[in-house]
Structures are given as C-alpha cells and as structure tokens.
C-alpha cells in the first residue's frame, strides 16, 4: 500500500501529465487557450484574476524552494533554518491567502454571473473543485500546522521523497510518517498534475515570453500552394447573363 501510493501513483500521474500534454498539443491546438471570459464579466475578474495568478506564482515559487532546494544548500549559502522557516511560512501564508481570495472570487464569479456560468464547462468545474481542494489542504498545512501549530519539517521527509522521484529512487517510508494533511496534499498534487493537460491550465505553458523580443508586426506567407484560380468577375457576370455562353 505504501509503495502503491508513494511510488506507483506519482509515476502514473507524471506519465499521464507528460503524455497528456503531448496528446493535447498534437490534437487540440484549437482548444489550447485561456478561455478568456473577460468580455462577459469584468468587475469580479478585475480583482480576482490578478490576486489568483500572482498568488499562484508565489505559491509555485514557494514549492520550488521548499521541495527542490535541499536544506543543505540553503544552509550552505548562509540561510539559517529559522530564517528559512520564517520566509516560507510568511511567504506561503501571504501568497496562499492571495491565491485563496482570488480563487474564491473567481468561483463566486462563475456561480453568480449567468453569462460566465453558461460558458463554464464540466472540466472547468472539475478543475475549480480540484484547485479548491488543493488550496485548502495547502493552507491547512501552512497556516494550521506551520504557523499556528507546532510545525513540521517537510524538508527532511517530503522534499527528499519528492526529489527521489526524479532520480527514480523515491523512498516511500519517508512519506508514511508525514502528517495526514501533508500526505493528502502530496497525493492530491500528483492527481492534480494528471488532470492538468486536460484542462484550460495548459495555457500556463503558453506564457508569451517571446513577445518581449519578437518584432512587432508579424508577416507570414500563405501556407500551401496557391488555390485554384477562378474566372474573373466579368466572366462570372457574363456567364450568369448568358447561360448558353458558358463553356
């Protein structure tokens, strides 16, 4: 069971994540979009969207820092455990609250505005539910356990296990001792990755950074051969006038 959850599931989810993106990119360029609904509703989006997106960027950065950077590295560059903990908890709480507030606003917007509700797909609803669950678990872990509670040093267990996945040596025993909320957040996280390629979240990979250096006006040649030339307008006109004259 431990192996199944902490070794098989992550790999399964990662395979779905990669293969799913590959499939979507190949077969659904047309659906690869943010699905903007700003023309339909602007007031709540104006506040909710930046809060949500900036919060997400902060939270994502926090996860990179906490999971991918080993504790030994932060110590080596002179960041004490206490300083790290303080930054992580404070940064996590602030960006987490932004993310939560933004998400709540966006979900409310989807529910109360009839126009936006109509363009909300089933997958959007699944995505919003998954996001809400992930954010809730994450906030309980950050605020409930680390800020208010006694704290839990995930860098010695979860982070080590997580990095192990990438060199194919995950140690499932590291996870079995973690608090339940962290376990759920980790499982949920991988399931979330598996869901990712099938939702509108794919727009994340299209963040248009190339815009910063490309020329303003884009010229592009017509693809493929020239189409069939047809009769000139005057010939069409004459043909319509005298059907018998048509060759």
């Amino acid at each position, binding site marked *: 069971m431990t192996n199944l959850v902490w070794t098989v599931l992550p790999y399964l989810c990662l395979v779905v994540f990669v293969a799913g993106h590959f499939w979507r990119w190949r077969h659904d*360029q*047309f659906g*690869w*979009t*943010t*699905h*903007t*609904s*700003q*023309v*339909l*509703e*602007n007031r709540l*989006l*104006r506040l909710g*969207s*930046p809060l*949500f*997106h*900036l919060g997400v960027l902060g939270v994502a950065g926090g996860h990179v820092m906490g999971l991918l950077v080993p504790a030994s590295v932060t110590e080596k560059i002179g960041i004490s455990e206490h300083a790290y903990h303080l930054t992580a908890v404070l940064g996590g709480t602030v960006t987490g609250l932004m993310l939560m507030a933004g998400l709540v606003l966006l979900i409310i917007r989807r529910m109360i505005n*009839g*126009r936006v*509700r*109509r*363009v909300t797909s089933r997958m959007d609803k699944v995505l919003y539910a998954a996001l809400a669950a992930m954010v809730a678990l994450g906030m309980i872990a950050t605020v409930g356990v680390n800020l208010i509670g006694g704290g839990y040093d995930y860098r010695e267990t979860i982070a080590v296990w997580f990095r192990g996945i990438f060199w194919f040596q995950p140690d499932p025993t590291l996870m079995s001792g973690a608090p339940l909320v962290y376990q759920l957040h980790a499982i949920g996280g991988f399931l979330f990755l598996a869901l990712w390629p099938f939702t509108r979240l794919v*727009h994340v990979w*299209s*963040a*248009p*950074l*190339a*815009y*910063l250096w*490309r020329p*303003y*006006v*884009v*010229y*592009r*040649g*017509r693809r*493929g*051969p*020239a*189409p*069939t*030339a*047809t*009769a*000139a*307008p*005057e*010939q*069409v*006109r004459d*043909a319509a006038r005298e059907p018998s004259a*048509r*060759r």
Partner: protein
Amino acid sequence: MRIRAQVAMVMNLDKCIGCHTCSVTCKQTWTNRDGTEYVWFNNVETKPGIGYPKHYEDQDRWHGGWQLDEKGRLKLRSGGRVKRLSRLFVNPDLPSIDDYYEPATFDKDILANAPAGLKDTPVQQPRSALTGEPMAVTWGANWEDSLGGTHEHGTGDPNLARMSAEAAARVKFEFEKTFLFHLPRICEHCLNPACVSACPSGAMYKREEDGIVLVDQDRCRGWRMCVSACPYKKVYVNHSTGKAEKCTLCFPRIEAGQPTVCSETCVGRLRYLGIVFYDEDAVLAAASVTDEHDLLDAQRAVFLDPSDPAVREAARAAGMPQEWLDAAERSPVWRLISEYKVALPLHPEYRTLPMVWYVPPLSPVLDAVGEAGRDDTDADDIFHTIRELRIPVEYLAELFTAGDVEATAGVLMKLAAMRSYMRARTLDGTVADELLDGIGMTADQVEAMYRLLAIAKYDERYVIPAAYSKDAAALEAQATANQDCALDCEGGPGMTTQASAESFHLVEGEQVRPGGPGLVSRRSDGRRGFTINPLRGGA
C-alpha cells in the same frame, strides 16, 4: 525598398444608403455561430453617432492604436512589451460585451406552436443569447441607425469632443434639420497593424502575399490584447471558443480573384477592391510623422506607382507575376487614393496605416448651394458652401484627416467640381475649364473619375488578381521528387485547396482558367486538380 502588394478597399460614402446588406451577408457567411452572436466583421454605423462598440473612437478610454512617445518613437498607446505582459491576467482596456450589446434571440416555438383561436396574439419574448434569460433589448449593432436616439447620446460621439466647441455646436441633432451619413466599417487590414503588434503569442499576422491580416486560430491563446489594441475595435473575442476572430477580407474569395462578400452584395456599388504596391521599409517612418496633419500625405507616399518602370522591375524581382502587375496598374483603389486623391483613410491619427479608405460624402452640398442662392457651377460658390455645411467639414476632417480641414475640403471640392463639370457637359455641352483649374485635374481625369465613381462597372470596381504562390518552385520540386503522390493525392495539399475552392464558388463544368490548362486541369476521374508538371503531361 521592399515592395509588397496589399489588397485594399475604398468605399464611396456618397452612395451608401445604409441598407446593411453588407453586414447581413457578411454575418451569414462568417459569424452566424455560437460565441459570435455579437460580432459584426462588417457593420454600418450612422455618423454622427457613438458607433459600434460604443465610443470605440475614444482612444483616451480604450488606448487603441499607436502614439509617439516623448522621444518621437512610435509605440502602442496601451503600452510597451513589459507593460502588456503585466496585464495578461486582466486587460484593463478590454471592452465588455455590454459595450457592444447583449445579443438577443427569440423562442419562435411560441408562435409556431400557438393553438388556433387564441384571443390574444402570442408574442415572442427576447431572450439573451448569453444567458438564456428573458431580457429587454436596449442596444444593438446599429441601434443609432439613421440617427435613432442620436438626440440623446449623439453628443457622446468622440469625434465631436475633439472638434472646436463652435464647430461642434454646429452639428445639430434635431431630427428635421439634421444631416447624417452612413459609415460601413470592416477590418482595415492596416500596414502597421496594432492588433498584430499587440498579440503576445504571435498568432496574428499580416500575409506576405496580399497584406490580409489574419488570426491563426490554432495559435491564438486568448490573451485578448488584439481586441483592445485595435483602435477600430475590429477584432473580437469569440466567447465560446475563447479565441480572437476578425474580418478575413474573405480571403478564400480574394485568392480566387473574387470580391469580398460585402463588396459583392453591396447594392449601392460603393465598394472598390484592388491591389496597391507599397514599400514596407517606408511604413514605420510614415506612421511616425510628428504632425498628425502630415499623416495623410505620408501614408499616400508609402504607396508605389504601379506604372513606374522601376517599381514594376522591383515587383518582378520580388516574384510577383505579370497578372499582379497589370492588376496593380488597373487598380481602382490606387486611382482613387493616389491619382485622383479623393479617397481618405479612416482616422489616420491612429497611425496604423489603414487600408480601407473612404471617399467622403458630399450629397447635400449641391442642394445647399442652390438653397443659398448661389451658382453650383461656380467654383468659389461651391467652395464657400462646403465650408458652411450643417455637418461642418470639421466633422469629416476628424474622421478622415486627423482634423485637417483643408485636406477634407479639398477632396469635397474635387467631388463637387466633378459633378458641376459633368452637369455642364451633359446638359449644354460646355466644358467648365475654370472648375478644372480650381482642382488641378484634366478633363480626361475628371471624366475617368466620374466613370469610376458614378457608372462603377463591376470589373472596374473589382480588380483582383488570383493568388500566386511564392513557393511555386518548391512545390514543383516536391512534385518531381514524388511522382506517385505529389499534390493531388489523398490528403495532399492540392486536395484541400480544391475542396475549399470548390465549396466557394466554382460551378460544375466551368472552365477554371480560360485559355489553357495552366496550373489547374481536370483529371480522368472528372475532379479538378493541380497540373503536376505540364511538361510531363501528368494530370
């Protein structure tokens, strides 16, 4: 000099009766789908009026188009690259759908299924196409048609705000006294398109061969920057697909040498389509001219004279076929813009170098001359009357010449002189030389202009060469390399083209290109296909 060809349009506003046939046929062709209910690639608005979407010309609000920064460099009014990316999460300049209008639909079953013998007539209630809920229709794409409601909100016309108070006061909105004209609008297919420049994902592009501005639907990621950057608000969000859509200048028809749907169906015969040659290297400088009043001449100067041997040589060197050179020489658009100089661009001050130009409306002038007891064959009298029109020349100048009254008055003068000249010639056979002197045109020119504007023959209005392929050599190589299946095999590129071309307008049994097999010929199974190699006798 880098020569390019552009398919451009001129509309003669004098002849627009506001029948909306162009809008309807365009909508039926392109935007009768989910998510585009509110979208009109072609719309006809009444001027003066606030337009569609509301107040779209107010760039202080929408920040569309370009402007010069303090160093005189051209930049998008909505900000540079970094600022744009910082606004990906929410675009503060984006119009909401209420700025267009809430599309309505009707439950027609109520009428169809109404039982016989009802005491009261069954009525349909409008329902929102966005929510399905019952709604009150309070605005539409042509709500102000023929000055409907203009007495209430007409003063919100952004063009009036830019005029002097005295001139604006002369624009009277009272119904009986007022004067109006219709302004049909499509995408301008600009030489310096702000929408393309603002598209973060690079999905929008200007076609190298004919200058048509398009959205690559597969590459659009829905960042919606094009919508706000276009000062004419002619890029729209399809709220069903989440992607941008815009007027395509009916490129499948243009490529086949046929006019756009809006032009083809225009009952007033006021649209002109043709190609113009322009110098791509001159575009930036022309858009960056400091004085807005110089923009018109700068934009005219970007065009290249198609009868100039040097230009023709450059066009040939750029790989354009003879057909295109000939079409450019016969182009009605070139003649109206550059030879007669009677067509003007819509809002040149947006600095996008729009490619749909307008012959400003003159209609009431000659009546006004008569009413004022003046002589409508006298150049001075006409000129004075033009300056005293109820819709002041200032208003037209705000639309077409960035407020340069002299330039607009000059064009109206030419049109008035042409009418008076032709009237004198037709009625009593006299040649009004003093009128010609006043506008600096020859009798031949005036008569040719009269023929183009008034007679407006189909094949003189639309001079569109069929598309050419820049990579013909590459295709030929491909065909030679693969003898069994080159272009017209199952799924090959030739097949797609054939299918799309056929679904457009080819009539069964029609000779595709008269006078020889050419690029296209009929195969043994009766279907049309590309002649793989005419020398090999393939097909």
